[in-house]
């Protein structure tokens, strides 16, 4: 997507894209339902019977939404998001994805500490000696609340293992 263009993406294009996406999802649901059988068996309706019609309704709704996009949003000049705002959203979204990826690898406690420290340091422009303890502090609070308070463990990784915490 050309998110860096000066004018940004028009709402019309996004409306079309989303409707096409939901439509494709509907087709996938129909296909998946037919795959497992959307008909009638000795035991009554088959497993795909209900989802098949759901899929059809999604396709139907998406088609109408495409038509309405042409009627309502074409040539109105409405902007979905412009370059500057896209950058702001990306600056929130990308660390989020990195947080997920790091947590999958090192566990949620380490991920949380790093994520909070990094966002405070890079985006909040705090000094590192404020950001790092803050990240560790939040992580520690989580540990006390979840692990000890409610006894629902979070994902732990190799770092906790070094300290002998399981």
């Amino acid at each position, binding site marked *: 997507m050309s998110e860096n263009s000066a004018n940004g993406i028009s709402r019309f294009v996004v409306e079309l894209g*989303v409707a096409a996406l939901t439509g494709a*999802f509907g087709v996938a649901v129909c296909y*998946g339902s037919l795959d497992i059988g959307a008909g009638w068996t000795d035991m*009554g309706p088959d497993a795909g019977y*209900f989802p098949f019609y759901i899929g059809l309704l999604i396709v*139907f709704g998406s088609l109408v939404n495409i038509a309405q996009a042409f009627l309502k949003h074409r040539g109105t000049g409405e902007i979905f998001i412009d370059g500057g705002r896209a950058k702001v959203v990306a600056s929130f979204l990308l660390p989020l994805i990195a947080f997920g990826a790091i947590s999958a690898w090192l566990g949620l406690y380490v991920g949380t500490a790093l994520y909070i420290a990094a966002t405070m340091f890079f985006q909040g422009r705090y000094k590192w000696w404020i950001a790092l303890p803050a990240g560790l502090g939040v992580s520690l609070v*989580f540990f006390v609340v979840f692990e000890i308070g409610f006894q629902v463990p979070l994902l732990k990784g190799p770092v906790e293992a070094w300290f002998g915490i399981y």
Partner: protein
Amino acid sequence: MENIGLLIDGFGHILSWNHILLMMVGVTLGILVGVLPGLGAPNGVSLLLPLTFSMDPISAIILLSCMYWGALFGGSTTSILFNIPGEPSSVATTFDGYPMAKAGQASRALTLAFVSAGLGALAGVVMITLLSGWVANFALKFSSPEYFAVYFLAFASFISMGAQSPFKTLVSMMLGFALASVGMDTISGNLRLTFDIPELIKGVSFLIAVMGLFGIGELLLTTEEGLRFEGIKARVKLAEIGRTLIEIPRYWLTIVRSTIIGIWMGITPAGPTAASFMSYGVARRSARDKSMFGKGDPRGVVAPETADHSAGTSALLPMLALGVPGSATAAVMMGGLMIWGLTPGPMLFTDRPDFVWGLIASMYLGNVVAVFLVIATVPLYASILRVPFSIIGPIIVAVIFSGAYQVANSISDIFLVISFGLLGYVFKKLDYPLAPLVLAMVLGDKAEDAFRQSMLMSGGSLSIFWSNGLVSGLMTLGLVLLLSPVAFWLVGTLRKRRHDVASHGDGNAAA
């Protein structure tokens, strides 16, 4: 009255220090999620739900429902002090609440909001106390076709009453149904719609969807808009609270009217947001002196708040008695009930009267606790909002991720939350409603079971939905609702055409 006796038993079940403490914790957490942007009632309840898996159901529901009340109150606080609705349902409160606060009447506006909200909520609970037994008895006559008809009615009313395009509502809702059917089929045991991805076998939890759609999605929107809190210093003065309490009876008509609107919109799945807007509109239209509306008219605070809370409370009646939740948050709580091993619906009243009446009793007590707690803690929460978003935002994200992991101890759910967050962000910007998606995800399996069992009973003929007076009445009402947008559109175009002709005839166009 039988219900009163049951209610007293209910109070017997919940009156212990342990439960009162849980109430206070619930309300406090609720106010917090209501105040913080990006966290709302549905999201807060979803985050707390995994922590209640090991609790006994009565304590768990007290915690969750009190969080709901707290969140409703918290949403109004930010509306009035910061002009930022913490909850979608408190948007209407900003119209007059913020101008009042700006004019130096913050305490008055807050007190008006909290007390009228409390009154609205109490009216909702009284309604539940009186009607729930009757509705449940009525619902005992239901079998599968009637149940499907009730679900159909609920979803049809979403399509017809929603503010958004009916087709966007349809797509959003059907996506919810499709997502609900991913994984193991409850009747045949077959796997469906998993497309051979092992992570999908356990299905897609509605909790993950709520956390992504309402949590991450909301945060993305907040970041994009570059949130700035320009709050008004709030110091709640006792004298002013007293003075405001004395003036409340003056608004009795507004309160009564808004309560009725709220209860009706809460029982039907229109929900608190629609109720508060409608109530504000009615109050404004019926006022003799409209000049102060939008500039700080107290009625503009009382009306939406009363309706918001009475709708929020009433939304629990159809959830308990029929198993059809009236709002997104009620849907999440109903999902919780099913996880704790309870089946919402009329049988719950005979199987677990202690649970049902304990919950109803806790609603009386919880709302009273909430009014006092919220008045006492306003300055505290107002100061939380002065913490920069670059700290609050990431902490909320971390809380959501932890909650998402705890739903099923699965790391793939975290990526699912991010995807739902993106979906929620785009849907919100394009005016796709999110509540129907959540509702469909919670009710999906039940609606499908009801439909398939009806089909089994009739051998595949749809005529079973018109086989007796009750079911055909429900289905017809549903169809009428479903087709009403078409009718309105037709009437609208016809009138416009006639209007055009008329104005051409006159020679001067009346706006």
